């Protein structure tokens, strides 16, 4: 799992790539929570490069959203691959996450 972080106008953008499975969860959760804590709480998670994810990966997304909301922030998802999209739809997490295809639209939502 590779994690690339940049900031645009106070909004954190993190691109994950590789596989997000149980073995990766402690490290990825820790790093994302740290970014939310140290930043504005506004986060775009780019999942375009995530070729495989399981339910433990979903739990990371939910934790990060909870911690962002606590500081009145927001987390939006960008670029779901087919397996990640079906995971999210099956578990109905599109109810709590806004999903974008395009970074500009995702950033506009958080501005």
């Amino acid at each position, binding site marked *: 799992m590779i994690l690339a972080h940049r900031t645009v106008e106070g909004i954190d953008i993190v691109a994950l790539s590789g596989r997000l499975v149980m*073995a990766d969860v402690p490290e990825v959760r820790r790093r994302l929570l740290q970014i939310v804590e140290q930043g504005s709480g506004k986060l775009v998670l780019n999942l375009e490069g995530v070729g495989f994810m399981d339910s433990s990966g979903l739990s990371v997304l939910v934790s990060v959203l909870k911690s962002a909301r606590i500081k009145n922030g927001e987390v939006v998802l960008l670029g779901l691959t087919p397996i990640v999209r079906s995971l999210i739809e099956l578990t109905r997490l599109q*109810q709590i996450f806004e999903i974008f295809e395009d970074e500009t639209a995702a950033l506009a939502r958080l501005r």
Partner: protein
Amino acid sequence: MAAIRTLSLMIESRADCIELIGGAVHGVFDLAPLPAGDGTRLELAVTEAINNVVEHAYDNQPGHRILVECWLESDRFSVLVCDEGKAMEPLILATARDFQTPDPADPDTWGNRGRGLAIIQSCVDTVEYASDRDRGLNTLKMSKRLNQSVSGQTDANAGQAAVPSHRPKSQADRHPE
């Protein structure tokens, strides 16, 4: 009438080993010319099943065995995930599809858990669980129908002996029930 083909796999109960089984099952599934997404969904089901064994049957303790069998038939691909740990409560599997829809207004409903079994059920056609208390062996069996054949094409190997088994013997000391 090709014979059933069996592949047995084993890993240690460690989170970082789980994907070895997922990758292997995906690779076996890919031998047949089937839609690519199907292999990933089977990998997901197997991954969730083994996550559960590591977390719940073995309480995240390394040093235990996780045994997996793939059975390939001409019209069906089955995967059995076996552990020698704590058994799953009856009824959990039967009610797994009824998980809570998250309410955007109420973070308490977003939950971090309880999705694994529902995901498994959505990725395969049948899911069965059995716990053999005498042998101390629990087995989750997942089965997926195939549209095209994945069985061997020649008759060169008809009339085989039974497949040798490396299922574990009962290990009562590892089985708290």
